[in-house]
């Protein structure tokens, strides 16, 4: 029997696995996708190779790219971008790592009126040490500027926004992103000549512009020193070598293992998690293991799907409900001068508006930008699209991240219309997007207006709002923790209210949409706190956050361990 089984090696699961392995627990980490052991060969800077939803290396499907991707039931015009594989959606994320708005936590002493009433069941101040821990481990650093950020900052200053210099969000303000991206050093960001960019001549972000296609920069760097700190370059290498850089126990990683069932047994008259079964996607074989504790971290769509397919209790019918997605929109301006929007980190500047949400500058290579521009109710096609894209490096794009309300009819459930796949009934994602709350609608309109104002102030010749249909990039709160037992699935420890020893450690555990900021850092801080709770509740291990100094994933000891283990 294992101590802990973690389902999913993405942004949250890898964190729990590393933290518990570092404490010496026997952790089995199961991942439905593949491992990508040689990303330099397996990934590509070419957009169709990486991001094609059916055939790209970052699709939601088998890592071999054989056969169709795994299906979801999307009953409306919407698009979902999640990746199966070690690293999960952190493989294609931008590395943006802001903290959540303090107003969405239970201890907020200010005016609560502007915020969603579905708060976290504990205080912001309690989470801060966990933020600091993760910010050190990844690490999170202040983003460097390129041309597009210079434009963004110019616009932000001209519309009178304040410059935020601290990590905590307290007022309307702009700032460079706090990114899980190593700052450029040496030749990085100063040349496009490959031989000058080989590690260690270049270290950190080389400004290649391919964040959504996976980071393999700088060329020749050890896996744990890749510029973008996806968990495949940070937490996962640490988990797999916890016996080398710490007095821990290396995690056992099994890939191509699609978990199909959570097992329970009665204990004290209540169900408790006892193990999992999975299907080997390459062969169709099945396997089962038992554990003292099971942690779900399969993502905000697959976690509730697995819960429901396992027939686990759902007495208040909130499993899968309350999906929040930041109801993104995109605003694009054509600038008079060079912006370099296809270069540099995909997002290195942002502005936050407590009670409304956030927006951030976004840069993409041409195919993903074309897809962005052509999507939405006012999306561009024809000569207008060609005209807009006639010089990619004179565009400036801003993505809106709405502070959207938890609503019960935004949900993941089991599809009754799509034929089940070998892993059970598939997930159906329902987004009745004409039924947003007045607060959510107001917030999105406010942010769009502000973003358009900023682009004009930055010198845009013209500005277009795309009014995006639901594009699911940030998905949260589908097995939410909450203050009330009536509308939440998890308690304040992220443990299931009705199944002991079952925890959730991905975005679905979040209580709400965080007030607008990008979710990964908060999920990772919460996953660290959850790991600590698991260790204390079921293994008698004393808490460590705030008491010990964390080891960074770029520490020389980790680099040695990664090299020795040939990871």
């Amino acid at each position: 029997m294992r101590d802990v089984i973690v389902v999913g090696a993405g942004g949250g699961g890898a964190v729990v696995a590393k933290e518990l392995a570092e404490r010496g627990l026997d952790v089995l980490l199961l991942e439905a996708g593949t491992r990508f052991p040689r990303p330099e060969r397996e990934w590509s800077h070419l957009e169709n190779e990486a991001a094609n939803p059916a055939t790209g290396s970052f699709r939601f499907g088998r890592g071999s790219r054989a056969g169709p991707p795994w299906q979801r039931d999307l009953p409306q015009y919407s698009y979902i971008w999640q990746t199966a594989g070690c690293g999960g959606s952190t493989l294609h994320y931008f590395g943006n790592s802001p903290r959540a708005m303090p107003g969405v936590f239970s201890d907020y002493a200010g005016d609560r009126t502007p915020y969603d009433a579905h708060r976290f069941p504990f205080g912001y101040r309690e989470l801060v040490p966990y933020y600091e821990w993760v910010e050190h481990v990844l690490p999170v650093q202040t983003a460097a500027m390129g041309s597009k950020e210079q434009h963004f900052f110019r616009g932000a200053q001209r519309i009178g926004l304040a410059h935020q210099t601290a990590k905590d969000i307290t007022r309307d303000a702009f700032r460079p992103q706090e990114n899980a991206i190593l700052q450029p050093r040496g030749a990085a960001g100063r040349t496009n000549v490959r031989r000058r960019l080989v590690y260690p001549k270049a270290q950190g972000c080389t400004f290649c512009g391919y964040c959504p296609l996976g980071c393999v920069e700088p060329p020749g760097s050890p896996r744990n020193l890749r510029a973008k700190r996806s968990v495949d370059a940070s937490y996962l290498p640490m988990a797999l070598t916890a016996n080398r850089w710490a007095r821990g126990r290396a995690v056992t990683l099994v890939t191509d293992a699609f978990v199909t069932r959570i097992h329970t047994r009665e204990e004290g008259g209540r169900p408790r998690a006892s193990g999992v079964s999975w299907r080997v996607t390459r062969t169709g074989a099945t396997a089962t293991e038992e554990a003292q504790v099971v942690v779900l971290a399969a993502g905000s769509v697959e976690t509730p799907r697995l819960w429901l397919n396992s027939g686990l209790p759902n007495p208040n019918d909130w499993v899968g409900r309350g999906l929040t997605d930041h109801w993104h929109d995109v605003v694009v301006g054509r600038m008079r001068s060079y912006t370099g929007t296809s270069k540099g980190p995909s997002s290195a500047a942002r502005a936050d508006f407590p009670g409304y949400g956030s927006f951030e500058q976004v840069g993409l290579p041409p195919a993903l930008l074309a897809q962005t521009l052509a999507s939405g109710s006012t999306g561009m096609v024809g000569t207008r699209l060609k005209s807009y894209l006639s010089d990619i490096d004179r565009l400036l794009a801003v993505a809106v991240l709405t502070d959207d309300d938890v609503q019960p009819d935004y949900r993941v459930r089991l599809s009754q219309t799509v034929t089940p796949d070998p892993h059970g009934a598939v997930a159906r994602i329902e987004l009745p997007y004409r039924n947003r709350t007045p607060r959510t609608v107001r917030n999105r309109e406010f942010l769009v207006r502000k973003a358009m104002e900023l682009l004009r102030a930055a010198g845009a010749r013209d500005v277009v709002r795309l009014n995006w249909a639901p594009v699911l990039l940030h998905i949260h709160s589908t097995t939410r923790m909450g203050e009330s037992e009536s509308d939440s699935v998890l308690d304040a420890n992220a443990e299931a209210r009705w199944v002991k020893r079952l925890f959730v450690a991905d975005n679905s555990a979040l209580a709400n949409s965080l007030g607008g900021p990008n979710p990964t850092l908060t999920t990772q801080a919460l996953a660290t706190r959850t790991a600590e709770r698991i260790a204390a509740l079921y293994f008698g291990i004393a808490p460590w956050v705030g008491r010990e100094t964390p080891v960074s994933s770029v520490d020389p000891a980790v680099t040695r361990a990664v090299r020795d283990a040939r990871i």
Partner: protein
Amino acid sequence: MLAQLPDLARLEGWLDDAHAATPTDVQQTFEGLVAYVVPGPDRYSRQQGQRSRTPGGVAAGGADVLIRTLDAFIASRPPFSVTVAAFLNGLSPQRRGPFRSRFANLSVRQKRAVLDALVNSSEEGIRFLGGNLPGLAAFACYSEANAFDRRRRRLRRRPVGWRLSRYDGLAEGRADLKGYFRGRRKADA
């Protein structure tokens, strides 16, 4: 959901046409779609009444990429692209033109009406499909897909979408570092 689209097309009587469709019919339908999203100097763009002097989606090979993507997205019989073409043609009014595909003969305004009809369909799968087709077509036209030799893992030529967007092309890094805003390399604690 998408797997049920052939059944829906069959209900409308469109799938019989789809089964009878030649590869040319399907190809023409998607050429008509990529010309709508990214027009060029080609005959599909001329037929729709909106063209452009620079190469468009047809020259970029966007139709081939889109067909391959749709066929890979879901395993179905007939191939998924044939079903999608059946929807586009089935919703298209008759209009005189040189193509066997009804959709390819339409004007820009009529093509938009067909895509709007898909997005506003009462059938869930059709809404999903119709909404995402323009974005996927744009992605296909501006990507490297039709200029990439997957076996040798190298580009055969500069992709049309890169020329259209004046994209610099592949590089491991770029010389665009401008330092740190107000010289601050670290946030306050």
